[in-house]
């Protein structure tokens, strides 16, 4: 009578508070015990243990991009290439002489143009701070307590944010939407594909790991300090993280204990075969916030920390070491260049801007060479937006960072700049095995550019997500959100069309 764990999870939450219900669920959720093998009872599953997510199949026509420069996002390019994709996945790519175009393929002439992986923004508040910026739209900070690990960006996400279609029109195909930085622990982020949908569920990146947003420094201490509650100092900030993770450890221990008790109960029950078996030990009450934090401690939930200053990042790494926490990426991290040796050694990524600085004291020590220095030292570097305006120009911001490095003598290859907004960003979300590069087997998240993507003059001509053709500049741009309809004047997403439709029938 074992049920699959995701269903169990739903049941547990539905039956919370009912002792017998919990027992029933615990029994039902226990994997089936093989009859006749009483010596090895199976451990009951913990509520957060689930099957690996299955990425559903999608259908898309067999398509061939022919003739363009394919920039793979992994440091290389193929000039005059062919890229084949079907049913949402890249099938093959290579020089024109090497990859033959199968009969029946839809052929798109990309000659003279560039193809890149879909861009990825590793730090977005689209949907949780949607446009227009009004009070009713402020759904990104549950700033009522400094630790709200129990909230999820997905639950505040509005799929009609007008910014979404603009980002898609700028070649962005995946985003990590995070809660804001008012709280020490802001809650779960959500990785999305920028496919239009009626709810966040339609947009979720299939198989993406959970993420946790945390914040250091000025924001939490300002928000709560102004209310004369903790934290009001950086000391209070760190005390808050420590308390939270200690609670999570204890929560995990409670469940391990229950698991052990349950195991021995099961052993007894199956050995004795008594009619009046004693009731199974009841599962501890679930706490979804602690569960998320425990997930972070166990490495299941990727930790994304908003942190500007070098000394604070080192402090967070020390705390992480104390608790066995793995930091995935420091966000904003304008001083990351000061500690790039440590970040490289610890395998911690950095997501930052090209040139944002100075608006608060912890952002005072920005250098324009930050991304270049990090890359040179082997840190996984990501260029993020944190802004509905900037997400439309990730390519330009990457070009600026590349240029800043070169001006200072750090002569990085141009492909590095593309990696900042594709493959490295995919790694930040934990989806680099799925997207972020042009490789056979990867999702067909693709952008066709009118020219070199690092040029200010280049436009996004076409965007494909999961092999589906979702944006074409020549056809008048993208799909406005419901909000934008009927506002009285013509609205357009994207640049004015200057070229004819590009599809060529074979």
């Amino acid at each position, binding site marked *: 009578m074992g049920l699959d764990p995701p269903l169990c999870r739903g049941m547990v939450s539905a039956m919370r508070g009912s002792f017998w219900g919990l027992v029933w669920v615990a029994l039902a959720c226990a994997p089936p015990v093989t009859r006749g093998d009483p010596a090895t009872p199976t451990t009951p599953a913990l509520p957060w243990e689930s099957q690996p997510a299955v990425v559903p199949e999608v259908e898309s026509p067999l398509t061939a991009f022919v003739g363009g420069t394919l920039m793979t996002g992994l440091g290389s390019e193929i000039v005059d290439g062919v890229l084949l994709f079907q049913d949402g996945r890249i099938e093959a790519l290579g020089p024109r002489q090497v990859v033959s175009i199968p009969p029946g393929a839809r052929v798109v002439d990309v000659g003279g143009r560039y193809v890149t992986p879909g861009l990825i923004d590793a730090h977005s508040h689209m949907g949780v701070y949607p446009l227009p910026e009004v009070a009713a739209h402020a759904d990104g900070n549950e700033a009522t307590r400094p630790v709200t690990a129990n909230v999820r960006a997905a639950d505040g996400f509005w799929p009609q944010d007008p910014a979404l279609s603009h980002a898609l029109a700028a070649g962005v195909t995946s985003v990590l939407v995070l809660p804001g930085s008012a709280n020490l622990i802001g809650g779960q982020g959500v990785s999305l594909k920028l496919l239009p949908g009626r709810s966040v569920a339609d947009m979720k990146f299939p198989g993406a790991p959970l993420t946790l947003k945390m914040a250091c420094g000025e924001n939490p201490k300002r928000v709560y300090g102004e209310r004369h509650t903790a934290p009001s100092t950086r000391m209070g900030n760190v005390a808050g993280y420590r308390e939270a993770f200690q609670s999570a450890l204890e929560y995990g221990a409670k469940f391990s204990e229950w698991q052990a008790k349950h195991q021995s109960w099961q052993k007894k029950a199956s050995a004795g075969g008594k009619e009046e078996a004693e009731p199974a030990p009841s599962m501890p009450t679930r706490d979804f916030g602690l569960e998320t934090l425990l997930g972070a401690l166990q490495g299941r939930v990727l930790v994304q920390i908003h942190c500007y200053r070098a000394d604070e990042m080192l402090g967070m790494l020390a705390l992480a070491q104390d608790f066995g926490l793995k930091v995935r990426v420091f966000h904003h991290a304008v001083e990351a260049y000061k500690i790039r040796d440590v970040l490289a050694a610890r395998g911690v990524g950095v997501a930052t801007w090209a040139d944002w600085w100075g608006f608060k004291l912890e952002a005072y020590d920005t250098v*324009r060479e930050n991304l270049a220095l990090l890359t040179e030292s082997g840190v996984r570097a990501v260029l993020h937006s944190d802004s509905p*305006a900037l997400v439309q120009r990730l390519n330009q911001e990457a070009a600026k960072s590349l240029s800043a490095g070169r001006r200072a003598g750090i002569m990085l290859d141009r492909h590095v700049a593309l990696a900042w907004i594709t493959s490295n960003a995919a790694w930040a979300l934990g989806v680099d095995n799925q997207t972020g590069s042009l490789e056979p087997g990867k999702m067909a998240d693709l952008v066709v550019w009118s020219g070199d993507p690092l040029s200010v003059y280049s436009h996004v001509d076409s965007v494909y997500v999961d092999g589906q053709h979702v944006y074409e500049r020549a056809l008048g741009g993208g799909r406005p959100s419901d909000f934008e309809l009927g506002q009285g004047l013509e609205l357009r997403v994207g640049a004015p069309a200057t070229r004819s439709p590009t599809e060529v029938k074979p």
Partner: protein
Amino acid sequence: MKRREALFGLGAHTAALALPGLLLPSQARAEGGARAWLGATIWTGDGQVIEDGLLISVGDRISVVSKAGPVPGGAEVIDARGAIITPGWVATETALGLIEVELEATTVDARPRRGLDAIRAAFSAADGYNQLSTLIGVARREGVTSAVSSPEGGLVSGTSAWVDLVERFPEPALVRENVALHASLLETAENSRPGLLSELRDALESARLYARSPQSYDQGQTRELSLSVLDLQRLSQVLGGALPLVVRVARGVDILRLFKLAESYQLRLILSGAEEGWSVANQIAAARVPVILDPMRNLPMSFASLQARRDNAVILGAAGVPLIFSGFDAYSAHNLRQLAGNAVASGLSRAAATRALAFEAARAFGQGADYGLLAAGRVANLCIWNGDPFELGTWAIEVVIRGRSASTRSRQTELFERYRDLGQVPRGRAGLPPSVRER
């Protein structure tokens, strides 16, 4: 590109070459000495381009801008082949020099800290401008050589000052104070559009009454006016258009309403923001009003800018409206050239985009005789680029302010250099590197 890097990568301004038919440079780049850039493509600033040009500065002024020709004896000759020379950019609607760390109130001089009256006409940016602000070096490094340093906040924010981004202190940075009065009709939590407009009308009416006879006012023979005498004096200067009034406004319909007000008081308007300006482009053109805008603003950020679109500048430009580009943020003043590049990508002519970075600002703020154009007699504020300045992969080889080579270093450069080699960074008991120990 490679060729240019080879030519200019190491500070080409020091490489004076002996060219046939030319006199060699004098030994000194003496202050006030003549400097001649030879062979560059010169974007004069009004949209003209001179290939293989010659630009000579003497002292703080430009003396020659022409096709390449003979250079007078004694001038330092700079081989600028492959480079592009433009006027230094002008940042407008920026708190540059008035703001250091935005969230630290004590470092912000762009607005009063207490007593937030809506009308602060007498508030003057010149009183707060700090030429040693670390923001200035960051902007100068990207070719910004002048700014209209502007107050912000309130209904009437105060007056702006025209400054050169000089690096030396106490060389005066201020060129002219009170170049324009700044106001905002953007929706706020405190007041609605009719509320703002009636308050502005009342202020202008008071100023008119005051201006009719300051003497009667001084003798107490005027009805009581709620504004201070300094506010009244300053406001009275915008009546009739002696002093331009810069107004932040977003909606098309609000722009038309503002024009009505401007007509009654004969204001000389400069629109700022104007996210929906495109929808009334012909009316703005007919009123001969320049517009300060960010051509990258294409999102419905508020209900006042639901119709924002990325070709706003293109449509306004096509209607003949003089455009001035601004990022409206002191920390991103360095990105002016990126704004121009994006405007060109959206369809604006390169000439109009170039004018939007200096020429039109100089004209709108009354400095057209001295700034914004590379021409004989103008102030020698210019920038020499290693390629197309609107592109993202180019940079300034040299920035010249008042005829002198200005530093392209900033506080950020020093931080970069300090951390270039982490082996030289102290780490407590783990060890001090030699360079620190020796001090």
